[in-house]
């Protein structure tokens, strides 16, 4: 069963994020995934996150697969046109990778190659449409494929966006376009998440709550200033600031947030950003 089916069968799905290296030494990424083996249903592999050039998501997914872990291929529209994206979708399937998260992608100027030409030939909605067409055995131009892939398609949504309505409209389009599950931007405010889940209940699609482990009060403030749709309440920042052990406090806060919100969603997506070895503690503390 893929992660969307698991969620539909009532399993509380746990996904976690790992990031490929800038370079070819994959030990750190594979070790991070190894720590979570058996605790996580699938591993998202980022696609040159924040527009920083790194080893690709597709080969990293394949390496996880070879070590017996289930990957989720993240695909952005930033660097590839429709020819390359469709080709990589076919390639992913041929390599046994069937979970695909379709994203727009950050703008190139935010990363470490601001000189690059940005692509955005497709957007997250038309990428989902393209993937679904491939499943039906045709490409975007209507040409027939020899053998068609099967995917479990996912998309993202930002429950903390203000205003929320444009996000909801786009989420609905993504569902119509074929998204079978959603992973959310990091959420630190259960009330806001509840408001969001009520607003999307009619879509009847599994939603996995996004959790980013707080590493420090400074990181929380940085996200509040710079990351769209993320708001860490002052009380949590203070907790981090006064904590004797930041790591223990981080785990405690993440577990508490999951506990408060797990009844409102079908899974959780944990983004540890370097603290992957803490993820099993979070899962245990949250009673998952």
């Amino acid at each position: 069963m893929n992660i969307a089916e698991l969620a539909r069968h009532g399993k509380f799905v746990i996904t976690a994020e790992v990031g490929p290296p800038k370079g070819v030494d994959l030990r750190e990424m594979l070790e991070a995934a190894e720590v979570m083996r058996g605790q996580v249903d699938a591993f998202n592999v980022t696609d040159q996150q924040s527009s920083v050039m790194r080893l690709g998501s597709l080969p990293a997914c394949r390496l996880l697969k070879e070590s017996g872990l289930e990957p989720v291929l993240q695909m952005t529209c930033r660097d590839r046109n429709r020819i390359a994206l469709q080709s990589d979708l076919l390639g992913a399937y041929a390599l046994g990778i069937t979970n695909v998260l379709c994203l727009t992608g950050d703008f190139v100027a935010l990363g470490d190659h601001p000189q690059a030409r940005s692509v955005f030939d497709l957007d997250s909605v038309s990428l989902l449409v393209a993937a679904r067409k491939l499943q039906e055995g045709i490409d975007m131009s209507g040409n027939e494929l020899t053998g068609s892939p099967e995917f479990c398609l996912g998309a993202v949504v930002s429950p903390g966006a203000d205003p929320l309505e444009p996000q909801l409209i786009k989420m609905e389009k993504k569902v119509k376009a074929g998204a079978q599950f959603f992973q959310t931007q990091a959420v630190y405010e259960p009330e806001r998440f509840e408001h969001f889940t009520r607003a999307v209940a009619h879509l009847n699609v599994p939603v996995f709550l996004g959790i980013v482990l707080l590493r420090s009060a400074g990181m929380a403030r940085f996200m509040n200033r710079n990351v769209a749709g993320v708001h860490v309440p002052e009380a949590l920042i203070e907790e981090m600031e006064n904590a004797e052990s930041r790591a223990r406090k981080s785990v405690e806060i993440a577990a508490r947030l999951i506990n408060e919100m797990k009844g409102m969603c079908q899974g959780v997506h944990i983004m540890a950003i370097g603290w992957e070895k803490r993820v099993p503690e979070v899962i245990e503390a949250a009673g998952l």
Partner: protein
Amino acid sequence: MIISEAKPLPEILGYLEGEQRVFIVGCKGCAEACHTGGEAQVVEMKGQLEAEGKEITGYTVVDFLCDKALVKLRLRPHEAEIVSADSLLVMTCGLGVQATAAVVDKLVHPACNVLNVGGARGEWRGEERCLECGDCLLDYTGGICPLTACTKSLINGPCGGAKDGRCEFEPDARECGWQRIYERLQKLGRLDKMSIILEAKDYSKMRPPQNLRSTIMWALERKDKEPVK
């Protein structure tokens, strides 16, 4: 000169679905020269829409629709006719449609596709831009071009990168184009337009046919470069 072509009538009728009363705006500039938005085409369109059961509350042909200040001035005498209409059909380039949308609180529908601006920017001094995409999307976005207003040229709604209505790229300088589109459609009560899934853009339409590139200057330059047979 900005080269435009008329959108097919069925496409325009699709835009007008559910609407009864329409005000038509033409342009005496490039659109008249292209036979896509001069007085003759405006009157013809009026007849075609009436034959489809629409009521035309009025029409006008403005000297240069790409000049926002002029548009406001020229539309003022028609205020009552415009207010009583459900929407406006604007028969000119993307700049003219955006200029009209910028001064009228009604939904505007584009009647043309721009094939080539030939390097010209019209009489335009505003911030609106036309990408000459050959398949104008302004109907779906309240008259704000998603290709030029959104840093990523997204056509199906905002990415998750905007914060406080500002773009993730150069937030001090750039508004989120989709925030503007959302606010505009919300104000017009037409958020239904934002729910329509737009197919991936056909960028081949941005490569205009050779004959349209044949401005006199282009032809002369080209001729000099081609070997004598």
